[in-house]
C-alpha cells in the first residue's frame, strides 16, 4: 500500500543486526492553486503535453528492444536518439546524455553495467535534466536503482500505458 520495503540485516547468529525501511513518497508540487491565482491553467500543462517533444536517449544492446522502445516513445511524441551499440564509454554517454531530458537504460545489458552508466549520468548532471529510467525484467530492483540515481523503473516487456504513467510520474516529481 505504501509501496515500501523493509528488510533486516542478520549477524552471524541469525539475529537482526540492523533494519532498513524504504518508503516511496510521491512529492507534491509546492505550488497550489491559491498561490498562482488566474494563471493556474497556463502553468500546468497536461501530462501528455509534458511528454511531447521530450528528448530521450535510449541505451540498450538489443536491437529488438531498441526498435520497439523507440516506437513506443515516438508514439508518445518524444524525440528519440540511441547510442550505437558498443559506444557506451564514459565520454560518449556523458556527451549524449547532456543534451537529453530522459535517459532510458536496459538493466540487463550484457557488456555494459547499467548502474555504472546511471551513476555517471547523475554525476555529470547539472540541474534537473536528464532523468534516468531503467527497464528491467527482475523484481525488487527499486532500492538498487535509487542508490544509482535512477528516477524510475519499468518492468519489461514495456507496455505503452505503463511507460506513459511512469514518464508522467517522473516529470511531475522534481
Amino acid at each position, binding site marked *: 500500500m505504501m509501496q515500501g520495503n523493509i528488510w533486516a540485516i542478520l549477524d552471524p547468529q541469525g539475529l537482526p543486526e540492523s533494519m532498513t525501511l524504504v518508503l516511496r513518497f510521491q512529492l507534491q508540487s509546492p505550488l497550489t492553486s491559491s498561490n498562482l491565482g488566474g494563471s493556474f491553467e497556463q502553468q500546468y500543462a497536461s501530462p501528455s503535453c509534458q511528454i511531447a517533444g521530450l528528448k530521450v536517449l535510449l541505451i540498450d544492446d538489443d536491437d529488438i528492444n531498441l526498435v*520497439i522502445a523507440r516506437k513506443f516513445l515516438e508514439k508518445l511524441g518524444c524525440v528519440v536518439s540511441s547510442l550505437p551499440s558498443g559506444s557506451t564509454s564514459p565520454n560518449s554517454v556523458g556527451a549524449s546524455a547532456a543534451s537529453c531530458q530522459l535517459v532510458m537504460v536496459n538493466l540487463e545489458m550484457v557488456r555494459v553495467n547499467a548502474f555504472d552508466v546511471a551513476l555517471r549520468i547523475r554525476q555529470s548532471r547539472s540541474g534537473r535534466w536528464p532523468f534516468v529510467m531503467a527497464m528491467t525484467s527482475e523484481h525488487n530492483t527499486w532500492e538498487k536503482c535509487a542508490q544509482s540515481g535512477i528516477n524510475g523503473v519499468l518492468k*519489461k516487456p514495456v507496455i*505503452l500505458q505503463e511507460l506513459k504513467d511512469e514518464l508522467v510520474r517522473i516529470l511531475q516529481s522534481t
Partner: protein
Amino acid sequence: MKKSLFDQGYLDEQFCQVEDLQDEASPNFVEEVVTLFLKDSGRLMSNIEQALEKYPRDFNRWDAYMQQLKGSCCSIGASRMKNECMSFRDSCGQGNVEGCMRAFQKVKREHAVLRQKLESYFQLLRQAGATGAATRSIK
C-alpha cells in the same frame, strides 16, 4: 490464424502491444520487427551454439547470451520460445549441462516453428491486402 497463434501460446499479449504501434507512419512495423527478431535471434542462437561447444560448463557465459535472447522474445511476445529460454537459464543456474543442451534444442525448435508460423501469417495478410478482402481479420 492469428487466434490460433495466441491460443496455442506461440504469441502473447505483448505481440498485441507491438501491433498497436503500427500506424500510417510505419505501416509495416510489425513485419519489420518480426523480420529483425527472426534474424537477430538466429544470430544469438548460433552464438550460444558456439559457446556451448567452445566454452564447456561456462554457465555464466551461456546464461548471459540466453538472457539477451530471452529479452528479445519477451519484447515481441514470443511466449513459447521465451519459456524455453527461461528453462535453459534455470539449467544454467543449476549447473546442469544436460538440461542446458535439452533446453537449447527446444529453443531452436520453437524458433523454427515460430518463424514458419509468422511467415505464413504475414503471407496471409499480404494476400488479404492484395485481393482487398472484405474480412480484414484472419481468425
